[in-house]
């Protein structure tokens, strides 16, 4: 029925099956929308956040998706700036994932703030000293860039492309995409960093606080680096998921291998820097404020030293080694394991850098603040996932996301 919209040379499942998928995911989406409306109409009392724990589940999700969406800027950077041309075969998907991640992030922020209708005060009354101001500006600008990067993809839809204006528009936009990719990469470098700065500048919170250079704490650089390192892994993971779901190979192995290798080397260098940062923090920064490392990891029911091991060893060192060593990287299972570990690793890092920061007591007579999300928070956090699945499904079905797909899956 919708075959006229489906790109040439590829096969898609029946409309009925597709509709069913959309309906199921759509139901989850509606649940999330309901929770979101509750938060807007009744206020943030719908969450389990409190005055000690003012950042919670969805802010972690926010940071995590932005890190994971880092595949878009970094792949773009590699393709357009460094000139890794093979990556053109995955860049569309990377951009799509980036677009989803960033639009989700903005949506989450709109739910998270207590006065969404005044959210624009962040621009109007901007405080240049605030990392969050930097985040807001860069995030918005980069989202605009991603939109610009995503639009030509939409315009390549078989029917839309028939409109000459759109055809030309898409063509021209492709022509100057390097400019946007460069702008995007620059913006992204910055705001990933500012997000890292969010906790790094909190000199009242010894757990999050890091020294650094000029106005930027080390976490500024570590966040950018880790987003660049783990983002591509996430792109690969999403590719794998889509391949599984569609039952088709969509990207050639050499492309995957190249991106995995780059991701591996980035993770390796990142994790060395992260270990150095952790050591300096544990041995110099924290003790200067009267804390030992173990103060941050004991006397509470959740945050044990295991979390540091999970983040650095399981989510850093191991995937780095697997992805860097050609033998292990070329093993599909090991590669996938490394990618998943990496995604977990960076997500744990973001969790730690927002939520554990809230949990650790600072005043000596204070206590660990524990928190679990309310269903409204869970629903609003799942909302972007559902939205992402739907957008990927629609894009995959109707847009030529994977240039290599027809070649890899010839239609008789």
């Amino acid at each position: 029925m919708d075959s006229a919209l489906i790109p040439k040379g590829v096969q898609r499942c029946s409309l009925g099956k597709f509709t069913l998928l959309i309906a199921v995911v759509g139901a989850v989406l509606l649940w999330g929308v309901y929770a979101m409306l509750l938060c807007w109409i009744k206020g943030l009392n719908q969450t389990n956040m409190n005055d000690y724990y003012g950042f919670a589940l969805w802010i972690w999700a926010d940071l995590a998706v932005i890190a994971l969406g880092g595949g878009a800027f970094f792949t773009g950077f590699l393709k357009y700036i460094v000139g890794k041309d093979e990556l053109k075969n995955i860049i569309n998907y990377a951009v799509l994932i980036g677009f989803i991640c960033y639009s989700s992030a903005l949506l989450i922020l709109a739910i998270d703030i207590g006065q969404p209708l005044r959210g624009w005060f962040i621009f109007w009354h901007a405080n240049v000293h605030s990392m969050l101001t930097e985040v807001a500006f860069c995030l918005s600008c980069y989202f605009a860039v991603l939109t610009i990067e995503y639009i030509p993809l939409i315009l390549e839809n078989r029917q839309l492309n028939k409109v000459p204006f759109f055809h030309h528009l898409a063509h021209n936009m492709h022509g100057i995409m390097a400019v946007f990719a460069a702008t995007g990469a620059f913006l992204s470098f910055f705001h990933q960093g500012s997000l890292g700065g969010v906790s790094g500048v909190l000199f009242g919170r010894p757990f999050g606080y890091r020294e650094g250079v000029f106005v930027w704490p080390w976490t500024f650089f570590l966040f950018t680096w880790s987003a660049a390192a783990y983002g591509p892994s996430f792109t690969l993971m999403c590719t794998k998921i889509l391949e599984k779901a569609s039952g088709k190979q969509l990207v050639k192995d050499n492309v995957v291998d190249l991106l995995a290798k780059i991701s591996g080397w980035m993770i390796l260098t990142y994790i060395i820097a992260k270990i150095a940062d952790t050591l300096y923090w544990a041995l110099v920064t924290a003790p200067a404020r009267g804390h030992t490392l173990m103060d941050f990891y004991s006397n509470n029911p959740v945050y044990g030293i295991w979390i540091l091991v999970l983040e650095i060893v399981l989510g850093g060192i191991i995937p780095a080694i697997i992805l860097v060593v050609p033998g292990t990287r070329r093993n599909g299972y090991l590669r996938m394991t490394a990618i998943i570990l990496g995604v977990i690793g960076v997500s744990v890092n973001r969790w730690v850098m927002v939520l554990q920061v809230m949990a650790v007591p600072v005043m000596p007579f204070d206590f660990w603040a524990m928190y679990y999300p309310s269903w409204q928070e869970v629903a609003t956090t799942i909302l972007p996932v559902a939205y992402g699945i739907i957008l990927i499904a629609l894009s995959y079905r109707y847009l030529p996301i994977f240039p290599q797909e027809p070649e890899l899956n010839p239609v008789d």
Partner: protein
Amino acid sequence: MKKAADHTKPKRYGMVIDLDKCTGCGACMVACFAENNIPFKKDESEKLLSITWMRVYKLSNKKKYPDTDICYLPRPCMHCEGHEGHSPCVSVCPATVTDYSTETGIVSQIYTRCFGCRYCMAACPYHARYFNWWDPVWPKGMEKMLSPDVSVRMRGVVEKCSFCYHRYQRAKDKAYVEGRTDVEEEEYQTACTQACPARAITFGDLNNPKHKVYELKQDPHAFRLLERLGTNPKVYYVSSREWVRKSGDNYLKHEEPGHIATKH
């Protein structure tokens, strides 16, 4: 008004709280609630959801019976000076809602500008900032008790102790009308200071040698909370008990409070 300010030396309003005298009665908290139109809900026992600009913490020496000891510690906003006015909360607020005044040393908060991101709360190690999770509601008839000096805050914004800034404004207006450029020590006192039945709180200009706080803050037993973080708070505490002073900051096992350089 601008002129008047120019003629006066910059002030650093602050407090010295005598923990030997504080009985933990909570009168300062109640006075603050009443002075500043602070809302109240049916259940206020969940302290992490209870707006208390002034909160009296209970400290313990954690020793066994009968060597146990407790001490109360009232905690308003510390009006941290940080490094050149970069208080932990001021520097992070993206919308310039909160500011460090170089004229008074008071950290302000503009409720109608705050959009509720709560970054400042994350930044404040003293938990002096509170979010309005709910719409404030006064049972029918009880809104009569609201003071016109302080605006009622709407849901979704952050609030905190203002050092009863409206009282400063009142005192300044009075001085202006009377042709003076400066407010006297007793003309500007916070509601909690005025209320404390133990007279444990002393408030004044830390820069002014004629104000009582100037002298009191130099007590060898004076300390500030979490000085080591560099927050540079303007609320001082005095206690004759060593364990209490030690509870004011984090120390490594071998460290002794007082031996660690801190700036006053």
